[in-house]
């Protein structure tokens, strides 16, 4: 017993305990619900028997239905565009802003804080505001573009099947940029100044310093931010609900919205769960990439 206690305080037991505690918590409160979703994706679920795990088996029927659905192709394409587009833009803008505010000019830290506004506002409110801003008739975006002479006639961002997905994407980039910015700002502030000073003495220009010091030093942060950004984007729901409801004619439906629609508007929980299982596979891949990427991290 003493040895166990000793190990808890001082040896490998200490490490194991820390990880096991957290993992157990997650497995109970997030793992079990996940398994439930996987299980019901193979079942015919009756809305009034949600409270049990025992439903008639459906085999792979739900999966076949989803793949044969007319919407499947659009949803897949939309999900890819939305996720890659959002993550790439959020990250780039977030990084650019973090670097910009890292220059320590007067007021930089205050103004950087204001950018957190997007993250503080409730998703519903953000959605509604962008719904109005992107409105074809009374929207401010059109008003400004028109004032600048960039468009001749109003663009109906939300209601044109060609642009509807992008209207949500714009809002999502706005929403997610502060998260990227603040985390990357922390990462930047962790890099010791003397590294840069030494490089400068060696005659490295700004670009070289960024490439050889900033990027490698921030690898852990960048990996974390991109992995988390991808997962957040895959979970984005409020903006779709408030801006396009996945329309018009399904043109802006993405996987998570479709899954919700099937589960909670059509009460077809089995098929809704199929999409969540497919999303699990995507995140599985993202997680693998992330875990692999950590191999190349630099520890001070």
């Amino acid at each position: 017993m003493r040895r166990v206690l000793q190990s808890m305080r001082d040896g490998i037991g200490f490490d194991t305990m820390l990880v096991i505690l957290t993992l157990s918590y997650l497995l109970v409160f997030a793992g079990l619900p996940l398994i439930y979703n996987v299980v019901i994706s193979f079942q015919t679920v009756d809305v009034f028997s949600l409270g049990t795990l025992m439903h008639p088996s459906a085999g792979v029927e739900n999966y076949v239905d989803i793949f044969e659905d007319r919407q499947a192709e659009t949803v897949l394409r939309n999900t890819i565009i939305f996720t890659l587009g959002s993550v790439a833009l959020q990250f780039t803008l977030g990084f650019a802003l973090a670097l910009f505010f890292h220059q320590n000019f007067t007021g930089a830290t205050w103004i950087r804080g204001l950018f957190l506004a997007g993250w503080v506002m409730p998703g519903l409110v953000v959605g509604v505001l962008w719904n109005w801003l992107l409105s074809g008739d009374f929207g401010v975006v059109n008003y400004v573009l028109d004032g600048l002479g960039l468009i001749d006639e109003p663009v109906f961002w939300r209601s044109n099947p060609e642009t509807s997905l992008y209207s949500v994407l714009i809002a999502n980039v706005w929403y997610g940029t502060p998260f990227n910015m603040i985390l990357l700002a922390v990462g930047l502030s962790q890099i010791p100044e003397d590294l840069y000073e030494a490089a400068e003495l060696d005659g490295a220009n700004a670009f070289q310093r960024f490439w050889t010091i900033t990027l490698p030093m921030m690898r852990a942060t960048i990996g974390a931010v991109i992995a988390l950004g991808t997962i957040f984007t895959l979970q984005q729901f409020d903006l779709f609900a408030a801006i396009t409801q996945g329309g018009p004619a399904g043109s802006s439906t993405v996987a998570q919205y479709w899954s919700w629609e099937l589960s909670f508007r059509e009460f077809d929980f089995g098929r809704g769960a199929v999409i969540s299982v497919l999303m699990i596979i995507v995140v599985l891949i993202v997680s693998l990439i992330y875990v692999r990427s950590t191999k190349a991290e630099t520890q001070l």
Partner: protein
Amino acid sequence: MSRFIATSALALTIGASAAMAQDVTLTLWTESATAPEGIFAQEFSEMDNGITIDVREIRFDDLVTDTLRAFATGTNPDLIAIDNPDHAAFASRGAFLDITDMVAGSDVIEIDRVFPGPRSSLSWDDRIFGIPRASNTIALYYNKDMFRAAGLDPDNPPSTWDELLAAARTLNDPANNVYGIAFSARASEEGTFQFLPWAQMAGGTFDNINAEGVADALELWNTFLSEGLASPDTLTRGQWDSTGTFNGGNAAMAISGPWELGRMASDADFDWGVTLLPVRAEGGERASALGDFNLAIFANTDHPDAAFAYLEYFWSQAHRIWPEFTRMPAIEGVELAPTGDARIDAAAAVFAEQLRYARNRGPHPEWPRISQRIQGAFQSVLTGQEEPQAALDRAAEEIDEILN
């Protein structure tokens, strides 16, 4: 005065019968505690009858899912106020208490006074599973000032589809940011609510959505959009926001319901009126949508009598639904007391007439799925992806699959 006596007498009876029983606490789930059922529940609780009702507000979008979830785990409330197209799903599964016999024995509730539309929404297999809270429907709002300016007669608003289309063309004025008409063709229940009346006026029904003539209704909607007579955002905008543009003077006509009256009376700085939804052709069939909620008791409640006593109290207050809540009673023979605003009173009379043609959506336990197919049809036509008849045929086929 007689109402007052009836109410007090009822309060006394309930008080007397419950005095013997233990104190009872019931729960009621609703979209709003300030809606009639919430206010009446509070009054009912304050009476000396041993019954207290706890009201829980749930966002409208979550009401059905939260309730389903709670029902599946036995944590559901005793009473619920539920949107009428969702009623059948619960009634058909035995989740709601069959109150047919209680109603027959009640001195207060006269179920035969309920209008046919709401009556259909709370019935399943000829049994009664609740009482209506109120009713609403849609009609045509129009801007009388714009009618005058365009040389149209404000006292003779469009009464057929052709007249409506002609008026929309005349009133449409893109240079001044004015659309001919505003409505909602959103991919949500609101869209179905707005579309079905047009389909029904053309002879269609939800289980026969590709009936001959429905394509004309869809073509009418399509014309509004393709000719720019309505905003393209009609596809992604709800009724409330669409009518907002009417109030702001950016649409000459709007299709919406009585819930708009309060905001319009205070915001619109022009003369407006309401008329019945135009029919397909002179003397054609009338139809309109039927909205609003029903009140139901859950079958697994421990206190069915106390819950029913609340329904009786609610019923006895029907005369207050219009003056205090600006909602239309779903019961025949309830007078709409004047509100003091002539425009609202005139509109109320129109809506009261329109309500007589209001048809229930369903009833069918799979209503949300059926509705989703209907939305799919009009949205794919309005975005130019399909021809009206083809879209309706496909929707009809999919709906048949759901029905059988």
